[in-house]
């Protein structure tokens, strides 16, 4: 690992200042479960690492009306074991419980996962399918505007995620086909159905692990499920292989097939 300047600010304002003064080579660190392995392989060489772990008010879970708000520094294990999350959006707690392994979940955070936008990460599927709102130190960003491609997001330089707010769906489920070694999603599908209340109703389906540009919504599946929320209704509607990613773990054709299977399982699991 190349050496770097290490900063551990105690407030969001200080973190933003440090990030600004570090210029292009500054890097924020949340739980470090992606950044540290990246640094160890010398795939990144930041001049400064700004550790957000000292900003205590960035962690925590609040039920806020018909939404669950999760602080950016909240670990996967905290989300997985939260009664508030399990009571309102069980699928989200289950998703968190399936990330990496127990040790990784003790450190890894929701904000870090979303900001990194790994195309095989689990949280982006939940954020997109649940139509979450990402709050930063500068603004609020809708899920549909946030994910911009492989490891790319709408975050500007100097922008720091502070929390993610998930509207509570009527029903939801996340099912993934994990890589058995890394437990990243080869394909993961998050299905959420909203009532006709404040969110406008309808069904949202997000797919992770498979897209050439990272997480995406499966619109044809959404339309079919909006009319008939059943596994039968989406037979054969999985996106074509030509739009998907193929690699040593799975071909694009196989991923296409898996999207159909995972989507049907998710619909069945959502009940």
């Amino acid at each position, binding site marked *: *690992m*190349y*050496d*770097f*300047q*290490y900063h*551990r600010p105690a407030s969001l304002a200080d973190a933003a200042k440090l990030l600004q003064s570090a210029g292009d080579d500054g890097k924020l660190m949340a739980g*470090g*479960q992606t950044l*540290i*392995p990246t*640094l*160890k392989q010398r795939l990144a060489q930041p001049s400064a*690492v700004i*550790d957000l*772990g000292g900003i205590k008010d960035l962690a925590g879970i609040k039920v806020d009306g018909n939404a669950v708000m999760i602080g950016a520094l909240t670990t996967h*294990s905290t989300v997985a074991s939260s009664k508030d999350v399990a009571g309102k959006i069980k699928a989200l707690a289950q998703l968190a419980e399936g990330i*990496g*392994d*127990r*040790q*990784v979940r*003790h*450190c890894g955070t929701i904000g870090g996962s979303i900001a990194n936008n790994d195309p095989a990460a689990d949280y982006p599927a939940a954020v997109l399918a649940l139509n979450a709102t990402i709050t930063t130190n500068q603004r609020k960003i809708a899920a549909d505007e946030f994910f911009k491609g492989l490891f790319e997001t709408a975050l500007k330089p100097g922008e720091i995620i502070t929390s993610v707010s998930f509207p509570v769906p009527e029903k939801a489920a996340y099912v993934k086909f994990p890589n058995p*070694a*890394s*437990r990243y999603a080869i394909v993961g599908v998050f299905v959420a159905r909203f009532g006709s209340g404040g969110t406008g109703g309808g069904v949202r389906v997000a797919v992770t692990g498979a897209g050439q540009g990272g997480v995406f919504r499966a619109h044809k599946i959404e339309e079919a499920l909006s009319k008939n929320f059943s596994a039968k209704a989406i037979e054969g509607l999985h996106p074509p292989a030509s739009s998907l990613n193929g690699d040593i773990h799975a071909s694009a054709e196989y991923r296409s097939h898996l999207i159909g299977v995972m989507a049907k399982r998710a619909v069945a699991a959502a009940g």
Partner: protein
Amino acid sequence: MPTVNLTVNGKAVSANVEARTLLVNLIREQLGLTGTHVGCDTSQCGACVVHVDGKSVKACTMLAVQANGSKVTTIEGLANGDKLHPMQEAFREHHGLQCGFCTPGMVMSAVCLAKGHPNLTEKEVREGLEGNICRCTGYHNIVQAVLAGAKAMGG
């Protein structure tokens, strides 16, 4: 160089480290506690698991500076003098090891997993140990040991 102040196995420790020093390197090379192992170095094998403020973490995937101010427990901190921790005793009793390289990490993960859960199921143990790899593939006895150790710990 940054200074870190930690409590390691109950003792206050102060050390100068480079920002890039991993917690596992501080523990092994500067503190001389070589019971914590480095297996894969890619955050997958779990040989380096220690407890930071009571939670199992991979010490190869945490900077030493991140642990500043924390309470760290390594495998050396489990036994009470000559008396093994119930989980260590269970690993011995059930022969939960072959070559022994993964054992410190397995035990540390198991202790964290079993805390507050004396009646773990086999499925919970297997899932809870997903981040610990045994290259001897000795999982059967490891799982038996963790189930027995959890009972012996009594939560």
